[in-house]
């Protein structure tokens, strides 16, 4: 029998009408997540991407979500108020059908972590740097059923297994442990 627990839900509200397309969200995200922190900038490593097309008036900040090993069976394409958005334009997945939300060097998937930090930030950095207030931060509590959660490392390993297969991963780990 699972028990109910309270969970903090972090929400970034995206008001696409307020976006002016400056990409500060991408820049500060990439810089914040650099190691050491802020030591480099590279929007290609950002966990938020601005889908930006001024001629069609499309400005959609999208956050990196789950990695998926295979692409969807079909694609979605939204038309809202007569404006046509890109295929998969609102999708958060790091997926084989497109090159967003992948580390440019390794190809490994990127995922927004809401700028988890110690001490924790009052708001994710993208929100702090969005002076247009297209991105705003909200928190609320929700009751959810307790679930067995995978740890960070396990999540990372699982995505590597999805990408390369368990056998390769095991071999790599074995090789690495021999080297060290």
């Amino acid at each position, binding site marked *: 029998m699972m028990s109910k627990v309270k969970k903090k839900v972090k929400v970034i509200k995206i008001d696409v009408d307020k976006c002016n397309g400056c990409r*500060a969200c991408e*820049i500060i995200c990439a810089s914040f997540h650099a190691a050491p922190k802020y030591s480099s900038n590279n929007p290609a490593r950002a966990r938020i991407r601005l889908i930006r097309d001024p001629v069609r008036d499309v400005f959609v900040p999208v956050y990196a979500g789950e990695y998926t090993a295979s692409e969807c069976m079909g694609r979605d394409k939204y038309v809202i108020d007569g404006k046509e958005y890109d295929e998969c334009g609102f999708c958060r997945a790091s997926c084989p059908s497109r090159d967003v939300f992948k580390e440019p060097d390794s190809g490994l998937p990127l995922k927004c972590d809401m700028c988890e930090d110690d001490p924790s930030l009052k708001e994710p950095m993208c929100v702090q740097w969005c*002076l247009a207030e297209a991105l705003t931060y909200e928190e609320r509590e929700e009751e959810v059923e307790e679930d067995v959660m995978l740890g960070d490392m396990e999540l990372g390993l699982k995505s590597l297994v999805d990408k390369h297969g368990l056998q390769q991963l095991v071999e790599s780990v074995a090789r690495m442990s021999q080297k060290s």
Partner: protein
Amino acid sequence: MRYAETGYNLEIDLTRGNIERVETDPKLAELHLGGLGTNAKILWDRVPPEVEPFSPDNLLIFSAGLLTGTPAPGANRTIVSTISPQTKLMAYSMMGGFWAPELKHAGYDKVILRGKSPELVYLWINNDKVELRDASHLQGKGTLETAELIRQELKEPNAQVASIGLAGENRVFFASIEQGRSSCSRLGIGGVMGDKRLKAIAVRGTKDVNIARPADFIEHCNDVLSYVKIREKNPLGMVPPILAGLGSPQEMKIHDEEWHTTNFAWGNARHRRKDFWTKEVEQSWKETQESARERFLSCYNCPMKCGASVSYPGVSKYMMKCYSKLTYTMASMSDLDFGFRIAGPAQEYGVDGFTTPQTIAFALELYEAGILTDQDMPGMPSDTEGRFFWLLDRIVRREGIGDILADGTYWAAERIGKGAEAFAHNNIKKHEQLPLKLGMMNPLYFLMYCTGEKINITQIEGQFPQAPFASKEETEDFLKDWIQVPDEKFKQYFRDWENRGDHSIPHYPTVEMSCEIVDWMEKMHYIDDATGMCAGLSSFPLKPAYHMHNWATILSAATGIDLDEAGLSQIAKRNRTLIRAFNVRRGLRRGDERPPEDHWKKRFPELEAKLLDEYYKFKGWNNQGIPTKTSLHELAMDYVSEDLEQRGII
């Protein structure tokens, strides 16, 4: 590891199609920062004064600034430098947008182009993969259209494209290079790009730009953003709305155009219309603007929104910024509606929004004066707006009279003759100026107009208010938090400045004060142009986010170069002096340094001579405006004085 800069340039020989990636000397950043500074160094070293603008030996340099691609808010400028076909001097024109940051992320600080391609090509830079591609299918295509076609054929929606239109292809002397809503417009660099048969440069990059002292640096960036927020909430009440905030003039946001429409001259920089701005005009222009503007637009990593996308009936969607909505409107003595209708096609053709309307207005004046006749203008429509469109089409194609007008007012007047020269009345160093015709000579503006290497006032002025304020209270209110002054004495200069009496123009600010004030304003622009910072957050508005007291520490944190305020001043001076020396080598002398004769009604020849004498001295130049051996030595540029000596210039 290199910080802030990538440490690599691309060298492209268009004649042979050769492409090289060349490591740069890290010392150059210490001497010149980057951007305009290092562009000037390359042009000095590699383009001797005999080289004509349309020679294969002329270089066309696309550069990022030193901070471009770092998280410094507003550091997004592309600085393009070459020899101007119009002035034959160094042309440097800058654009915001997204191009230079992408170049940095591709791993390069500059693209240096030489030679001439046999066929029309475009350059595609995709990280380490760089290639010249056929562009014959893009011939005659518009600037925005070209960018879109290239992104589609490369299947790279994230590629940033800088391109020329018909005007550039046809070597119009005021052709621009366009990129989204941003453009390098002044001095005809698009014409040089066309001469090199280069239609566009597309770039995509996914590499890191490194920061030397990350924690320090980001703190400065956060401070800048906090300041911008405060400044945005508290516009300056003592100046017209258009000058009250940060950014380039907020033309897309502000409807109140009383200042421009009543202070600037209409037509061919001729008529002041002091009673133009009425309630009816205000209402009608407000409606026009609201219906045209779709969305405010920002450049890369900048919280300002100086541009907008424009969706106007009967015109393809385009993007606009700053003052171009008024240049066509006012040159044609027409309406804002016309401004929005012609600016779109003009941008697709790729022409300068200042020089183009002025050249057309100049042609129409010549026609009215009988100097140009129906024989010169066969088939020209009878209405002014129709004529503007008609002449624009001919200029960008260099057809008929358009071929002459495409050289700008100075050279066109020379070719037309018959007294046409008197109609090309608004130039400095052969280049068209803002349409301003004023009363009393202003010593600050006199110096900036005469000596500015950019030959464009908006790229020189900014830090010091344009005039005294109406009341003492406003003055004190302004002075109380004016932290940007390099020295407290500037506050007193301003406090004592009055609209009438002994402490008013032309004799106050005094010659000595004028030298100091102008030097400060100019220094700020030279720092921006080397770092890639947008003037809109730094050198152009009053009370900017970046100033003499925080610049050195910001640059130090980003680059690791040990730099203080005095050291930074020295670099700015070095860059400024090098460009002066470059132009001197190409023949620039004191005689060229004068404002349009009719810029001010009341002139003071003796005072003006004294201003120039003293400013030259202040700068370390001789009485002809030529940098002296001593000052070049102090700036570690003995190689420049040796060259000038060999040529018998000093």
